[in-house]
């Protein structure tokens, strides 16, 4: 890690719950020295118009993600499994709302 990178405040990912009952949604990132500051800045940067009722922050370097190069290998096998969807099954009209 270079000298400059070590002097930069770490990067955090911000997740906001727009209102009770909904899930937290990723909305962006920001730099902050620690967790308390990240939460405070998240409020200033991402909820200036009451966009949220709850905020999560997590260090960006703590997120583990799937590799975009593996996208086909990972997700395409589900393409031919149409029987996992309710619309795959043709039922008599009498029970069609099942």
């Amino acid at each position: 890690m270079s000298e400059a990178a070590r002097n930069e405040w770490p990067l955090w990912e911000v997740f906001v719950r727009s209102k009770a009952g909904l899930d937290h949604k990723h909305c962006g990132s920001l730099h902050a020295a620690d967790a308390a500051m990240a939460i405070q800045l998240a409020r200033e940067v991402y909820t200036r118009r009451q966009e949220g009722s709850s905020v999560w922050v997590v260090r960006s370097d703590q997120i583990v993600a799937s590799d975009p190069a593996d996208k086909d290998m990972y997700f395409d096998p589900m393409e031919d499994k149409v029987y996992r969807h309710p619309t795959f099954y043709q039922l008599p009209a009498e029970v069609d709302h099942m």
Partner: protein
Amino acid sequence: MYTQAMDVGPKDEAKAVQTLQEQELQRRFDERIDAGDFIEAKDWMPDHYRKTLVRQISQHAHSEIVGMLPEGNWISRAPTLKRKAILLAKVQDEGGHGLYLYAAAETLGVSRDQLLDALHTGRAKYSSIFNYPTLTWADVGVIGWLVDGAAIMNQVPICRCSYAPYARAMVRICKEESFHQRQGYEALLTMMKHGTEAQRAMVQDAVNRWWWPSLMMFGPPDSESVHSAQSMRWGIKRVSNDELRQKFVDATVPQAELLGVTLPDPELKWNEACGHYDFGAIDWSEFWRVVNGHGPCNKERLAARVKAWDDGAWVREAALAHARKQQAKTMKEAA
């Protein structure tokens, strides 16, 4: 707010020689662009695409941040408490917009400090409109109406940019931007309809000074725009400079009439045949003079940014030192 030819800068060429594997990746990338797919941060992309985006997004971010200065100048002198609260909220938004955009640029593998260093050492540009001074309170209204109006015209198409993190930042920005233009126009309406003769003259004077620089915000004419063709091909840019400029003029003329001000262009008139307003020639020598550092406030704006960065160094260092100390303490207690 921002805009103008964020793609103003040296023309860099795509690397000519590619390996077979690179050619295949390039082919798949082009296919995705043609299909209107979004490109995400971790996806493969040509170096030239990455470089173009870093330049455009970071210069866009710098513009938001430098854009806080001309208006910030009036926060302590706003005529009423209401106008002061509005202006504070608007300038805070500009700071937020800068942050969304820096974060988008950072997804491309550059650090925030590198981006700021490019601004502070003069290697990166920002929208030249912010190198003009805000002489009176009417300037604040005119910036909202014309400068933010031009910015909205420019920014709405970027919401469909092929680079997804940039597009997402733009969606958020555009949602907030409309308040900026409306508050400016309303402030001017108040001065024109309920103000004194001197206040109306003040509005007209501000319009006279900001009209041409606002038109320049859309960047050089299409025939001279060095990055346009490539950016269009990549879906970074969706609408041409001249097309956006025309759209802005067409939207603004009726607003000026309603306001009761004259736009300072004797050649401005409705062209029935093509369904647009014709307007006079833009002085591009002024545009290039300001872009290249010789506008009325270039030195002052950059000096203000560098001073803020330098003066804040101890705060950044202290916060980091505190965080490390707390962390060490927690680890010691846990052990």
